[in-house]
């Protein structure tokens, strides 16, 4: 028994990602065709060269047919996966394991979501018949409970906390403004952020992820085959996943200042990848900043700083694009947008660009480090699934 990982066994050799936006004029099929086409081209393959497909969508379609039909895949094994907001990461995890197992030579993960056809703002879960006792809060409200709990535990005043959360939003907007694929490409002042209308608890509009349509995809092959497809493969160092039991919601011991599932997944990922000092070893990290307090506590859950200190590090600029450890250099969920099924793969796409030196010059991270982390979560405080990956440019 044990979580052994597949370090250096699998490489990403091609990726694509649409712009994330309110694509009123594009269907789910359009987004899939665009992201998949870019990915085939990136790897220099055709759809027929891919042996198996995993398609992640949270609620834009059911079954592998949702991918097979627009791409006209003939007789391929195509599987739909869903795991809350980690859906895209799960598609890649399945594809990578399939290749590592030897079952397939070339596998593809595609994540896509068309959320802007619902007529409502925000994300809305597909209703499952139930006894009517389940809470009906928005995700914003569930995550908003983190901020006061964190402030109380670590003695951060409400004003200080507002400044910290605004700084996170400001940073992600700074990064998104420089990214041609981001949903929101505008810098926003901390004053504007703080003055935005409240959505839930103390969270305002600018504390919440953008809601966008989009798609992203990746092709993976065995590491030894990688150079047949690209000169600059990105090797998978760790893929870790943890699902909570949901007991945080009903356990008086849970204090809403951290996400145990994320800490577990990070610990496992670092062990798989052999990382001992994430803050000192990673070139960058993409984390699941669905709401600003989420990014705050993730800095601690992922081991980027000690418990109770993330708020100071945020204010010190540690996680800025030009800081010690850039977090969400592509703008994150906040300004890149969050088409649920695509987001996990979008995070890999940023690691792919940055580690290969292919981000546009004004936003390319200058670093000698060879590793990047992606973190993707789904659910709510107390009831969460969490994914952490580490990827790198070199074997060993």
């Amino acid at each position, binding site marked *: 028994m044990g979580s052994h990982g597949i370090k250096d066994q699998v490489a990403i050799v091609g990726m694509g990602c649409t712009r994330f936006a309110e694509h009123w004029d594009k269907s789910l099929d359009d987004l899939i065709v665009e992201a998949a086409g870019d990915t085939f081209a990136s790897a220099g393959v055709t759809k027929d060269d891919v042996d198996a497909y995993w398609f992640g969508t949270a609620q834009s379609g059911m079954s592998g047919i949702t991918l097979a039909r627009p791409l006209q895949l003939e007789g391929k094994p195509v599987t739909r996966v869903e795991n809350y907001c980690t859906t895209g990461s799960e598609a890649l995890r399945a594809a990578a394991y399939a290749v590592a197992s030897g079952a397939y030579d070339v596998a593809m993960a595609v994540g896509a979501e068309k959320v802007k056809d*619902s007529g*409502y*703002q*925000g994300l*809305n879960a597909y*209703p499952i*018949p*139930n*006894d*009517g*006792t389940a*809470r*009906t*809060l*928005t995700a*914003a*409200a*569930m995550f*908003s*409970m983190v901020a*006061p*709990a964190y402030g*109380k535990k670590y003695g951060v005043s409400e004003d200080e906390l507002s400044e910290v959360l605004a700084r996170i939003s400001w940073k992600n907007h700074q990064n998104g403004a420089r990214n041609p694929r981001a949903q929101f490409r505008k810098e926003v002042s901390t004053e504007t952020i703080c003055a935005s209308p*409240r*959505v*839930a*608890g103390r969270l305002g509009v600018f504390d919440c992820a953008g809601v966008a349509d989009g798609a992203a995809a990746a092709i993976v092959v065995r590491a030894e085959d990688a150079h047949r497809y690209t000169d600059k493969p990105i090797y998978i160092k760790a893929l870790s996943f943890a699902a909570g*039991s949901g*007991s945080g*919601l*009903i*356990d*008086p011991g*849970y*204090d*809403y200042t951290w996400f145990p599932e994320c800490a577990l997944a990070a610990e496992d990922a670092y062990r798989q990848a052999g990382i001992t000092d994430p803050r000192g070893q990673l070139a960058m990290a993409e984390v699941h900043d669905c709401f600003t307090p989420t990014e705050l506590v993730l800095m601690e859950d992922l081991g980027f700083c000690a418990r109770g200190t993330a708020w100071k590090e945020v204010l010190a600029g540690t996680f800025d694009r030009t800081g010690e450890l850039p977090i969400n250099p592509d703008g994150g969920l906040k300004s890149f947008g969050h088409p649920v099924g695509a987001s996990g793969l979008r995070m890999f796409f940023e690691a792919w660009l940055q580690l290969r030196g292919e981000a546009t010059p004004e936003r390319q991270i200058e670093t000698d480090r060879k590793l990047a982390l992606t973190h993707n979560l789904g659910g709510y405080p*107390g009831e969460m699934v969490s994914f952490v990956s580490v990827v790198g440019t070199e074997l060993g």
Partner: protein
Amino acid sequence: MRGIVSVAGYVPYRRLQRSAVAQVFGNGGGKGSRAVASHDEDTTTMGVEAARLALRAAPTVAPDGLWFATATPAYLDKTNATAIHAALRLPAEVPAFDFGGALRSGVGAVVSALRAEGSGTTLVVLADMRDGMPTSADESAGGDGAAALVVGDDGPGHPAIAEYLGGASLTDEFLDRWRTVGDRRSKTWEERFGENRYVALGEQAWASALKTSGVTAEEIDKVVVTGMHARSTKALGRKLGVKPESLVDDLSATVGQTGSAHVGLMLASILEQSEPGQLVALVALADGADVLVFRATPALADWSPSDSVADQIAGGADLPYGKFLTWRGMVTPEPPRRPEPQRVSSTAAWRNEDWKYGFVGSKDRSSEAVHLPPSRISMKGGAVDDMEPIGRADSVATIATYTIDRMAYSPSPPIVFAVVDFDGGGRFPVELTDVEPDSVEIGDRVTMTFRKLFTADGIHDYFWKAKPLRAGAAE
């Protein structure tokens, strides 16, 4: 000897100041206030709250039957008393019946229970929500509320606090007030006709009741005349021949006339203020006249209300008239731009009856971890199928953290929501009600209350919420 073993009134938290009506419309309204059921309350939920209070004040009582009377039932065809039965966790063998439709059904259920000597202990629950068109007399004079009476034969474990001495019921078919099925508005005949009938019927029934009870009018210590026909109740009060100080406040100025519930609410209010040995009478005018005469027993001295009507009246908070009209469906404001909730699954609700209606979780026998909702496998230690049921409806809890959701769907946004930890173990994330959004603090104490979360496809979604523990309520 048969009588009242326990009694409780339930007055919802919100008040409409009648002056608010004229401020909006330029006319209507009046003096004082009326009680207003919250948007998440109906006659069934208010009935549950009243029944919980009455049973809490008589902890040794196990009712043999449950009768629920209302002129404003949440469902037709389907029995409403069954939801009350489930919320009270009464055994399946205890029958639950509705007395429906008419204003007189409230007093009718009480009279029937009092007359059924030797039939065991009956929990009689009365509830009503009185509507009227904006600016109407009914809108202002009406009130929302509930009451519950435990009626039974005096005995060990169920001592009567008020002995039923006797009464009288006169029935007459005449049209004073009527409402056809589906109508929001009651209609009335010329007021003086009703007065003519009610005062005559009331005088006759009063005389008859005094005779069967063996008491005189001068001996009566407390009496009240209830009914929706205000002119008659006032006129009859003057003709009863009782000492002037014996006529007690009928709660018109504070709660309003709560229709089929008012008889019970008044009995609760009067008995809460009575001394052992005192004579108490009640006259109800609805399609006839019903008179009930009681003598408070020595057991009254050992009985105390769980949350007195007086405390509940004093503990209310005002509601803007616009909210009142919205909650009553008289105006429709812009709904939240979120999908409306889907209807509750009948099968899932039935499987989870104890949880949904009784707020019963499970407690792991080995780790003692409390699971809300119940779980088969423990979150601490992983024991399988080794849990016992644990009710938390009557437990007090403390707010661990909270939030206000301004985006989620609610019949009356915003949703105020808290994570609460129960005394004795157990945590549950739960919606708060009867609360001012900006007043919530970590550490606040809350109690559970049975509410209606929403209605979809005509199905009411009943479940529990938490409300602030207020002074007066027993902790």
